[in-house]
């Protein structure tokens, strides 16, 4: 038993050793003099015929016996992004030497990498000595992948691989390894988080390109960022290669098998990320820094010199684009930009009641007195026009948050959870930017309804943007419906979450409809903590407007936990809500006007009080007793009015809608959520049991640019989320920077105004 465990535990190691010994037998590496320099520009691990011919040529011009034997290695997918390195200056090469020693020292901290650091150091020394001999160290590193090319001597742009594709490495490791780069192309060296000269320019270029390349509705994927980086680097590589050809200086190449182990044990990883660093102590001036030049920052956070500057970990993604000539019509219309933040600030009560979730945190960051100023600092940093908070403890709100937010110019609407719960939701809006037209405080609790027996709440506000141009009002803005909620957490009770969402959607629908009756399109922003993962049924209902829920396991609705292993699950069956709740399957009040849908501040809209009924409600009455009696005054026309009722036939057109829930609002998530395969995917919340995306900002997207009804919001930008790894590197959440176990979500929107 123990033996087999040992076997499997060591299996990767034995495989590796086998491979190394094989390659050592088969494939001696070579060093030759006066060789041309590998240009490193081909991002493929396979060689074209011209390249192999070139190599043959090199071989014929003169080879020397191998100075260093190199094990063959399996490069795997890492080589896909093989490329030239970006920049090189002789100055940097010097710098590299100067920083080499401290770097290798820090590298020793990582036990697995001590040997590597030393070897790299040796290589560096050798490089220094041998550079005049114009030595190129060759290695058949590709052997494992391309056995038929064993005989070829091949240069390796190795350092690039080590830094860009192996996220387990530290920057400290990467720097010495760079010395072994036979392409001589050196990247800006990074020492403990500082950015070297020259990198800033490149970064700003990247940021500019990023801004150019991204637009509304497109995801700002890392791939795009990456792509830009590659392009830049390819150019740099060419230039560097030229320089190298002139100097003919070739550094040595060295490999350490330890890298292989790291790599083999590591599943193919996602692409590197960009980071956001401030230039100085201020928070405003920041520089975008792709992690290709600062690799592994998140793995070695202790090396950050926090004393010198503060790290801004979050990147603002600008999604706006320059208006094109076709959009000239917009200039006739006014524009109104605003930002919305959604933030679960972690109620102190709940923190203290669930301390097991925060065992990873230093005690001091858990105290409210520590967290509160950080919260306020974050609000002040971003100054959202609309601020939607969840888990706001009532006493903290009254005593601290409300006064502070009022001072900042916010008007706040608070709703505590029902019964004995002490926290709730708040929507705050800047009084100089919005005026409030209506307010609905939504309680999901219904004592007579089994799926609505919890205390969660929501708030729905109708806000009127304040548009002034000088003293005269030339534009009229459509109203904005802002809603926030914090749905039930319990991962097993997706049915309750769904029911709560239906109640909230009904309220929003009611508010929006009141606007429509008055001929005003109403945009919706729905945000909060939905306690449900992206693309799971609850999320789908919001974004796709409908969900077939009948028979779904209740845990699956939110997908927070995979409970499929359980023999028996709680399932959701139609109807989700009993008719007594007064909300139909289309998430609308059956009576047309909801119990809480009241307009407290009705400025210009008279209540229509129309008798509205939706289709489903009308159909419920189709076979009611009264409807089954033939009207005595119905004109009898054979073939026209001689139908007979057969209630058993039911309704042929209704059936397929019965087990579905739907709504009428067009909603889209501000953030693009990928399926969480790895811990590199972005999260909105993290505690000791893991991270997930459960918070969202949904909004009514713009339909067409110049549509007359002016509906829809244009997403101008958002504050990027962070990955689990990023967050663990700063000791998880909450920490000394982020005061909650959730991240704040922030989006900037634009709406079109109509001339008065």
């Amino acid at each position, binding site marked *: 038993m123990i033996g087999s465990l040992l076997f499997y535990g060591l299996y990767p190691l034995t495989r590796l050793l086998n491979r190394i010994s094989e390659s050592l037998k088969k494939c001696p590496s070579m060093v030759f003099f006066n060789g041309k320099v590998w240009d490193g520009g081909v991002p493929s691990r396979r060689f074209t015929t011209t390249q192999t011919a070139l190599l043959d040529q090199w071989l014929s011009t003169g080879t020397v016996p191998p100075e260093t034997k190199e094990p063959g290695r399996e490069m795997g997918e890492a080589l896909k992004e093989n490329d030239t390195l970006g920049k090189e200056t002789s100055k940097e090469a010097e710098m590299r030497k100067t920083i080499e020693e401290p770097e290798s020292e820090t590298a020793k901290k990582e036990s697995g990498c001590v040997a590597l650091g030393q070897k790299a150091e040796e290589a560096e020394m050798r490089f220094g000595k041998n550079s005049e001999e114009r030595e190129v160290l060759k290695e058949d590193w590709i052997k494992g992948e391309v056995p038929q090319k064993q005989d070829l001597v091949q240069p390796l742009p190795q350092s690039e691989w080590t830094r860009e594709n192996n996220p387990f490495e530290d920057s400290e490791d990467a720097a010495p390894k760079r010395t072994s780069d036979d392409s001589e192309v050196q990247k800006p060296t990074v020492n403990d988080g500082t950015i070297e000269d020259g990198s800033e320019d490149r970064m700003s270029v990247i940021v500019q390109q990023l801004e150019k390349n991204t637009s509304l509705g497109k995801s700002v994927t890392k791939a795009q960022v990456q792509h830009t980086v590659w392009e830049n680097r390819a150019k740099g590589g060419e230039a560097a290669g030229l320089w190298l050809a002139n100097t003919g200086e070739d550094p040595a190449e060295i490999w350490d098998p330890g890298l292989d182990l790291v790599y083999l044990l590591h599943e193919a990883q996602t692409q590197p990320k960009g980071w956001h660093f401030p230039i100085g102590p201020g928070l405003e001036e920041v520089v975008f820094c792709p992690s290709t030049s600062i690799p592994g920052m998140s793995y070695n956070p202790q090396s950050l010199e926090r004393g010198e500057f503060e790290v801004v970990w979050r990147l603002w993604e600008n999604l706006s684009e320059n208006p094109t000539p076709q959009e000239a019509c917009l200039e006739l219309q006014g524009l109104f930009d605003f930002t919305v933040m959604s933030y679960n600030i972690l109620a102190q009560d709940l923190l203290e009641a669930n301390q097991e979730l925060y065992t990873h945190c230093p005690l001091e960051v858990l105290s409210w007195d520590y967290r509160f100023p950080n919260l306020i600092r974050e609000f002040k940093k971003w100054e959202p026009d609309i601020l939607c908070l969840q888990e706001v403890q009532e006493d903290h709100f009254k005593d601290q948050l409300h006064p502070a937010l009022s001072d900042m110019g916010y008007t706040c609407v608070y709703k505590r959870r029902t019964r004995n719960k002490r926290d709730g939701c708040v929507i705050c809006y800047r009084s100089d930017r919005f005026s409030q037209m209506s307010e609905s405080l939504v309680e999901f609790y219904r004592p007579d309804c089994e799926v609505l027996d919890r205390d969660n709440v929501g708030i729905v506000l109708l806000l009127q943007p304040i548009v002034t141009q000088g003293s005269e009002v030339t534009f009229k803005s459509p109203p904005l419906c802002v809603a926030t909620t914090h749905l039930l957490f319990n991962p097993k009770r997706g049915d309750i979450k769904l029911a709560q969402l239906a109640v909230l959607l009904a309220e929003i629908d009611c508010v929006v409809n009141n606007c429509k009756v008055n001929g005003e399109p109403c945009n919706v922003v729905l945000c909060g903590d939905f306690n449900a993962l992206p693309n799971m049924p609850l999320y789908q209902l919001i974004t796709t407007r409908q969900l077939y829920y009948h028979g779904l396991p209740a845990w699956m609705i939110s997908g927070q936990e995979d409970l499929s292993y359980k023999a028996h699950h709680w399932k959701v069956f139609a109807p989700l809500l009993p008719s007594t709740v007064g909300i139909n399957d289309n998430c609308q009040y059956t009576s047309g006007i909801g119990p809480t849908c009241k307009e407290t501040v009705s400025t210009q809209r008279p209540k229509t009080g129309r*008798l509205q009924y939706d289709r489903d409600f*009308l159909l419920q009455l189709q076979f009611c007793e009264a409807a089954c009696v033939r*009207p005595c005054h119905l004109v009898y026309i054979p073939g*026209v*009015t001689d139908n007979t009722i057969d209630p058993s036939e039911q309704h042929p057109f209704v059936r397929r809608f019965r087990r579905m829930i739907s709504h009428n609002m067009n909603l889209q998530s501000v953030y693009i959520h990928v399926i969480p395969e790895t811990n590199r995917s972005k999260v909105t919340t993290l505690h000791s049991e893991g991270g997930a995306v459960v918070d969202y900002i949904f909004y009514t997207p713009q339909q067409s640019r110049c549509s007359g009804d002016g509906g829809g919001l244009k997403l101008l930008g958002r504050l990027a989320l962070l990955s689990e790894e990023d967050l663990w590197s700063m000791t998880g959440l909450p920490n000394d920077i982020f005061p909650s176990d959730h991240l704040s979500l922030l989006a900037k929107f634009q709406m079109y105004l109509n001339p008065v």
Partner: protein
Amino acid sequence: MNNKFDALKDDDSGDHDQDQGSQKDCEKEKTENDEDKDQNTAKRKIAVPGAEEHPLQYNYSFWYSRRTPGRPASTQSYESNIKQIGSFASVEQFWRFYSHMIRPGDLTGHSDFHLFKEGIKPMWEDDANKLGGKWIIRLRKGLASRCWENLILAMLGEQFMVGEEICGAVVSVRFQEDIISIWNKTASDQATTARIRDTLRRVLNLPPNTIMEYKTHTDSIKAWEDFHGLVNPAGAR
């Protein structure tokens, strides 16, 4: 309620009967009475929602028309061919009528169902309609029943949200296709017609490429006259 009845009588004596201008209201009623006692009864008995019933925002009337083969089509024959089937004021009363009527898809021949607000006749010339128009959707055979039901449920349930603008809805059964249309009061009100169109798309679940056509009643009248080569009789308009 009496006001509505009076309004209906006024309408009756209005448009089409002006060429027979001398005809008194009572005489006309008598004529109709002769034609169809039940219909008269229906008109006299103003619909009111029963206790515990769900009242509608407006009272509505069902009408049925069928083109008699062979007879020349004219405005007048149209009017005489159209029959008011009954009026209702609540959801329950609506279902009583609707349930006892054949579905449009099962109708034979060249016939139409009309559902109009009480007091508005399903005719271009009605005061409520004369400045109006209609959205037209042509349906292949087999869809009319479902679309018609969805259309009138949306209308009765005040889903169009265009205030008083909606006049009524029509389903026309033809040989190759069926046509549904919804009429509104003000053809020139583009915001209203756009909203009606959008609501139609939603409630009928129409595919995005569905062709929807808006036609003003003035155009309809002109086209009709051109088609029939009619010179408008004095007073008919």
